[in-house]
């Protein structure tokens, strides 16, 4: 094949590379658009929760103090004070267990039952909707809590965001919250980084190959702009053959 002139090379490359990665480039642009337009704090669910920064009421001297807990749980590695629905509880962490202890009564409440999980979810929920469902997830977690420690209570709200709150049955905390726009974001992120399994590895070969191709595609596009616009400028004074 004879030597083709640069604009012909650029145009041919742009066309064929477009066929190869054009769809992925469009996916990058569209998923990127969603991610930049939708506020990340909203995605994180910050607007759906309340009562997450409650000051702690430190319990005074009582029969159920840290000294008694240390005597009772000799293999404790951590003893914490955390508010649960505005009331302070101890959480005791041992090598293989966690306990939630009421400082007033010394009662151990574990794991939290469905009604308590619902109550806690309700307490942190900033919306008006009703709870539609509560399930204890002990194995096979859905993708949206892949990295979280199980078990967790999943409490679903009947709102337009399909909100789900995840309550830790061993310390009564709101472990995380998810909603439809988070789930869309997560799915689009998978498309953006082309990691369709774990949705977290942006160092994968498929992505790097697509990026190399996409970069060449973009370079040929910019290269063509040069010819397109210089052709435009000279059009008027064209000498007719």
């Amino acid at each position: 094949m004879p030597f083709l002139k640069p604009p012909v090379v650029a145009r041919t490359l742009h066309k064929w590379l477009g066929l190869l990665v054009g769809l992925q480039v469009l996916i990058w642009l569209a998923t990127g658009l969603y991610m930049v337009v939708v506020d990340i704090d909203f995605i994180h669910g910050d607007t759906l929760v309340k009562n997450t920064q409650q000051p702690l009421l430190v319990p005074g001297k009582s029969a159920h103090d840290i000294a008694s807990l240390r005597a009772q749980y000799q293999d404790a590695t951590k003893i914490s004070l955390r508010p649960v629905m505005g009331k302070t509880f101890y959480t005791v962490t041992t090598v293989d267990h966690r306990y939630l202890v009421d400082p007033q009564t010394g009662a151990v409440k574990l794991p939290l039952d469905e009604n308590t999980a619902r109550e806690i979810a309700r307490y942190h929920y900033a919306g008006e909707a009703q709870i539609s469902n509560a399930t204890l997830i002990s194995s096979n977690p859905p993708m949206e809590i892949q990295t979280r420690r199980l078990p967790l209570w999943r409490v679903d709200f009947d709102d337009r965001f399909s909100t789900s709150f995840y309550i830790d049955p061993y310390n009564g905390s709101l472990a995380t919250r998810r909603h439809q726009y988070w789930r869309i974001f997560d799915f689009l992120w998978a498309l953006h980084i082309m990691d369709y399994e774990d949705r977290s590895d942006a160092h994968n070969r498929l992505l790097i190959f697509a990026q190399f191709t996409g970069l060449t595609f973009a370079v040929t596009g910019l290269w063509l702009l040069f010819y397109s616009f210089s052709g435009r400028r000279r059009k008027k004074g064209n000498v007719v053959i």
Partner: protein
Amino acid sequence: MLLLKKLHKWVGLFIGIQVLLWLLSGLVISLLDPVKVNGRQWASPVVTEPQYIGPTALLEPAELPTEYLKDALSIDLTIQHGIPVYLIRHSDGEHLVSGIDGSLVTFESFDAQKLASQDFNGDGEVISVERGMAPDMETRNHSGAYWRVNFSDKANTAIYISISTGKILERRNSYWRVRDFFWMLHIMDYAGHKDFNNPLIITVALVAIWLGLSGFLLLFGSFNRHDFFFLRFPGKRDDVVITLFEPGVTGPRKVVLRRGSNLFLSLATHGVSLPSICGGGGECGKCRVRFEVTDLPDASGIDLLLVPKRLREKGYRLACQQIVENNMTLHLSEGTLTPPD
């Protein structure tokens, strides 16, 4: 199609550079190994024996100085560096208070140097320790005073230790700094490197989507089934003969082209380069050739735009807009067939 092309070109002119930067920065970010970027590559593996709180006499939380308890969000009692401590979290930071006497535990520069050296197992020594206040560029997700412990390794590692808790806040190195520079380009937040909901990127992304959409639609128009001739049975060729005349050149030249191919491109691949600036894009109007009246195809929209009526009537058409269908005779402008020196 014409309108789409115009849209594609103009949007490309305005934000093409940014699209290029997105692809370039995305590529660089993906190529960098995340284990090096986050410094885990050179961090000692954490093997902790369980640290039991044990029976030592301790202060109860209520006995701690009230100034630390005020507006506390959570309190954790653990053993750290061999002593029982309460970690008290406030909305603006964390403090460690000794469980033995209620005194505030802080970390001095030599503590920080020791903690950082224990953590770092790369090839380098501590060269300096500096004090700073988070959040700054490298500690943007934290708050409070820190020690920055600098190492002499090739990756210029800096380990940030919190003054109030002794925690390792970040492990930074050249990999992270390169990544962060390209991340800044990627999300177009040139000041803070972290806000990807900024008005600039939203605007550019809203414009760029049109580049993508128009390009995607143009893709369908720019291909026809003849572009995929190589998928057909080998040996099954379907050729036409094009006879070329040029003033000043004696005798015609004949080229054999594939039926269904683009006239401009096919001639170019057979060594006949028609005059062109845009390379066959239907934009410059330079590749006009004169058809014999008997072969004259209908004028395309682009012919109407770029070839003057007078010339169209004489049989001029743009070669880049023509599909090779039948044997035909063309008249080229002077100099086209002249062999290169």
